[in-house]
């Protein structure tokens, strides 16, 4: 009996810590996205032509990293974080939810398409820099197309190519800035370790 109680307790505490770890990661991922969104708004607001189209959009990099590294949890964090930042631009909750869902799900289409063009394994063991570039482009394209298509279906004017192009450019340039920045930091960190 005592052994059963102990094992139940250990299962309970294991499940609890696993759930806490899940929630903590989820919160950190969402928080990072919101922080980067606000940083982008502060730094590059002058490059925006509308609230969802800017020449540089840094959080686009996280739209790629989160689904790749964290799967469903990453996508959920994107949707949640998108829902948090959107309110200032859309008062209708259903509209906000739809936009947030697009923010999280459009990259999934981009990643799936990239996988068809240039296969990478589910555990990312054969992922290269070229894959990252391809995925960035595909996700930017899927986001630009799906977002503008939704806005048009939701009652906005027919999106111009300039507007679609700006969303695409913003995602590509934002992801490029973040990825090359991370690449430099990682390389300098390795270099520092090897200095005699």
């Amino acid at each position, binding site marked *: 009996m005592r052994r059963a109680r102990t094992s139940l307790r250990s299962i309970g505490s294991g499940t609890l810590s696993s759930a806490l770890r899940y929630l903590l990661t989820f919160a950190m991922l969402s928080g990072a996205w919101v922080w980067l969104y606000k940083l982008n708004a502060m730094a590059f607001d002058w490059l925006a032509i509308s609230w969802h189209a800017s020449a540089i959009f840094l959080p686009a990099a996280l739209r790629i990293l989160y689904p790749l590294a964290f799967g469903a949890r990453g996508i959920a964090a994107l949707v949640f974080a998108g829902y948090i930042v959107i309110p200032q631009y859309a008062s209708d909750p259903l509209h906000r939810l739809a936009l947030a869902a697009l923010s999280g799900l459009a990259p999934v289409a981009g990643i799936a398409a990239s996988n068809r063009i240039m296969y990478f394994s589910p555990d990312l063991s054969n992922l290269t820099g070229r894959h990252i570039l391809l995925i960035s482009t595909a996700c930017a394209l899927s986001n630009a197309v799906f977002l503008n298509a939704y806005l048009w279906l939701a009652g906005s004017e027919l999106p111009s190519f300039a507007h679609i192009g700006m969303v695409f450019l913003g995602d590509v340039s934002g992801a490029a800035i973040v990825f090359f920045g991370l690449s430099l930091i*990682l390389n300098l960190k390795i270099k520092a370790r090897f200095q*005699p």
Partner: protein
Amino acid sequence: MSAKHPGSEHIKILYLMSALRSLAPMRKLSADEAWLLDALVLRWHEHEELTVSDVMSSGEFGSQTTSYRRLISLRDKGFINLTVCSEDRRVKIVEPSEHARMYIRELENGITSLAQGSNKLA
């Protein structure tokens, strides 16, 4: 390791970081640097103690200035260490770094698996 294994996210992040690191051009060796590194690998394999002066005066790797510049570039990219000789502090010895040892091991593993593959085919 299944996709639901808790360690798999960690592994994915490591692979992602490796792919991101390869984006920056600074890791890549130029063809001349790669050639110099291969020549150094051969000398180390023969257990020869190699000094910076030996490399510069060999003439195989361009002028003295060019050879020195390539050695420094290999050092900056983490492939070699230049250690001061204990007997003569003016002399610097060219030694492989951990990075170079990994590179040599990768080469050995690659050649071994190639040989095994060709044996199976035969």
